């Protein structure tokens, strides 16, 4: 028990304010856009097999996003969110962890699930809210989750996963598990009270959690300079007493390196880490959004030239681990796979009407059963008004 935690500066006799401008935050970059490694750069642990797996995940993510936006435009899907331009943050983060580590996503991190091997069929069933969805068709598209893959189901309220990640990691620590929790969120979500709650508690309670901020410049239409005035999100980590690093989020090797180091530190020291990955949301916020109303084509073009997938491809080719023929074949295969999976998923029935009351509690109460019975009788009376369920129970 101690109240003496301050690393005090000197006592001064003139009023001396600090504003943080004296704190320079370095940004880790290992790979340049042409795929050349900077001289003296510290490389992450990576070999050809890992590099290939990462690249395949990135490529699949890009194809999935393209196809699903097209499906939404065709009216086959209600809603979708891409991660265009910032795929390296989720894929690289997952690649820096072990399978037993918990991943808590915000909603733009399906790359982590893809890397962990979430089945294409499961992705599609979630997106089409059909009877095969692990989430039983209850949440909007992109709210994936998988117990088996240690990926916590996404929830729409922003930043709620941040203190939860602290609690989850604390439980992992108590059990002495070789496991950490990584928690993704955007720079906009970092304005929520739960950000403060989660980071402060992680520091105080000493939880092995990696806070991973995707600073992609926008919260829907609000640019980051209307979100905060401090030096990004990284500067806050210092205030909480959390080891913090800022990285180029479009550099897959920087993401991988930072996550690998963070994981090792979190497990060994049982302490949190904050990673701020600088990136840019090249796509719209969601299929319901149109960025032309709040940003310029010039700005987007600048960031298109920082494409993380192209950057990795350039590096792989220089390594002689990849070539254009493989590239074409891979993208072609993924396009066919996704299209075929869409066709299957959209034909699967909606979830059974009984699932309306399951999982509210561990066991449905008598009241819930009575309410369901009433709805069923009503559906039977007006079957044409309820085509998804009429005649199916």
């Amino acid at each position: 028990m101690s109240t003496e935690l301050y690393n005090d500066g000197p006592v001064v006799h003139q009023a001396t304010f600090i504003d943080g401008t004296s704190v320079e935050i370095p940004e880790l970059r290992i790979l340049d856009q042409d795929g050349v490694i900077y001289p003296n750069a510290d490389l992450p642990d990576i070999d050809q097999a890992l590099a290939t797996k990462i690249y395949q995940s990135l490529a699949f993510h890009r194809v999935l996003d393209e196809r699903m936006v097209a499906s939404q435009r065709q009216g086959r899907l209600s809603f979708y969110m891409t991660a265009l331009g910032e795929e390296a943050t989720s894929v690289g983060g997952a690649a820096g962890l072990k399978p037993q580590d918990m991943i808590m996503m915000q909603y733009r991190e399906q790359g982590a699930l893809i890397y962990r091997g979430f089945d294409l069929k499961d992705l599609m069933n979630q997106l089409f809210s059909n009877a095969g969805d692990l989430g039983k068709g209850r949440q909007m598209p992109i709210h994936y989750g998988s117990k088996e893959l240690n990926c916590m189901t996404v929830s729409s309220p922003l930043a709620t996963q941040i203190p939860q990640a602290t609690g989850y990691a604390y439980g992992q620590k108590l059990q002495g598990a070789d496991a950490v929790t990584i928690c993704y969120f955007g720079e906009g979500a970092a304005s929520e009270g739960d950000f403060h709650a989660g980071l402060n508690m992680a520091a105080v309670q000493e939880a092995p959690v990696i806070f991973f901020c995707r600073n992609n410049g926008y919260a829907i239409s609000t640019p980051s300079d209307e979100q905060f005035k401090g030096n990004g999100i990284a500067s806050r980590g210092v205030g909480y007493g959390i080891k913090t690093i800022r990285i180029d989020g479009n550099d897959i090797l920087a993401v991988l390196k930072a996550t690998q180091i963070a994981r090792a530190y979190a497990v060994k020291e049982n302490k949190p880490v904050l990673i701020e990955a600088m990136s840019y949301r090249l796509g719209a916020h969601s299929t319901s959004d149109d960025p032309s109303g709040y940003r310029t084509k010039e700005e987007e073009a600048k960031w298109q030239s920082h494409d993380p997938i192209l950057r990795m491809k350039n590096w792989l080719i220089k390594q002689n681990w990849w070539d254009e023929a493989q590239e074409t074949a891979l993208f072609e295969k993924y396009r066919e796979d996704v299209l075929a999976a869409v066709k299957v998923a959209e034909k699967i029935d909606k979830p059974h009407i009984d699932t309306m009351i399951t999982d509210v509690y561990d066991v449905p109460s008598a009241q819930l059963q009575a309410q369901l019975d009433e709805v069923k009788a009503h559906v039977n009376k007006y079957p044409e008004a309820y085509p998804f369920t009429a005649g199916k129970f």
Partner: protein
Amino acid sequence: MAQINLLHAINSALDIAMAEDKSTVCFGEDVGHFGGVFRATSGLQEKYGKARCFNTPLVEQGIIGFANGLAAQGSVAIAEIQFADYIFPAFDQIVNEAAKFRYRSGNEFNVGKLTIRSPYGGGIAGGLYHSQSPEAYFAHTPGLKVVIPRNPYQAKGLLLASIRDDNPVIFFEPKRLYRASVGEVPEEDYQLPLGKAEVVQTGTDITLLAWGAQMEIIEKAAQMASNDGISCEVVDLRTILPWDIETISKSVMKTGRLLISQEAPLTAGFASEIAATIQSECFLHLESPIARVCGLDTPYPLALEKEYVSDHLKVYEAIIKSVNY
């Protein structure tokens, strides 16, 4: 059997829960070495270590967010919110997260191992912000259970059941009774059922229903009414959500009258929900309108607390009015 107060009963339940499962963790503001501002967690840190019973920073949304994550991970999470009046910063974590965790994930994940304890209610000269009874807010949230004990015996058995129940439970403790209510409580482990009301006293003329600290109020009013020859059936709801419609309906079908007493304000309080359901279930058996004796639709006052709150005299008057309707 030992005579102990309600606080000791809570402490005894927590002690049993921590002893039986190493993954059980108790935390909240001042919960650690100090044992909580009411001393409900007294001695637990000394016995089970700082890792399992500890102070948190002053951040209710963080306490419940942390608790949600801990419970989802598989640990038994027992979080204390120091006063129910301060539970609202955690409303999102309770209503949007804890309550929906299982449903939204299709049962991939759940926080069934979460229990939130919080002292609630008036009678301690606590004014607006140390007196509220917020049970109705949470009763409007599918996925939660809400439990309120009336005495030490009930508190221990219901708290142990809440901790072991595989759903998130909010356990509101009537703080006015923490030291005032003393009774026989077994030292050993026992549980009382959730979702079940208890008929405390049988009667034939009117059903009096309440929970928590209002129970001794309606029992006292029932005693007064019996001097007038009115036979009251006294029922403790015990679990607010999901509530025991069957027991209440059965009682009202027998007596033909229902009075509900609550500390919380009248409008949209849980008494209103009970009244709506019971008039639907027992319409042809009712001999008078269902009576609600409640706080006024104002914030909880300090100097005028006695006038504000539902007491035995107000309940007695409502009994007479109902019987003479």
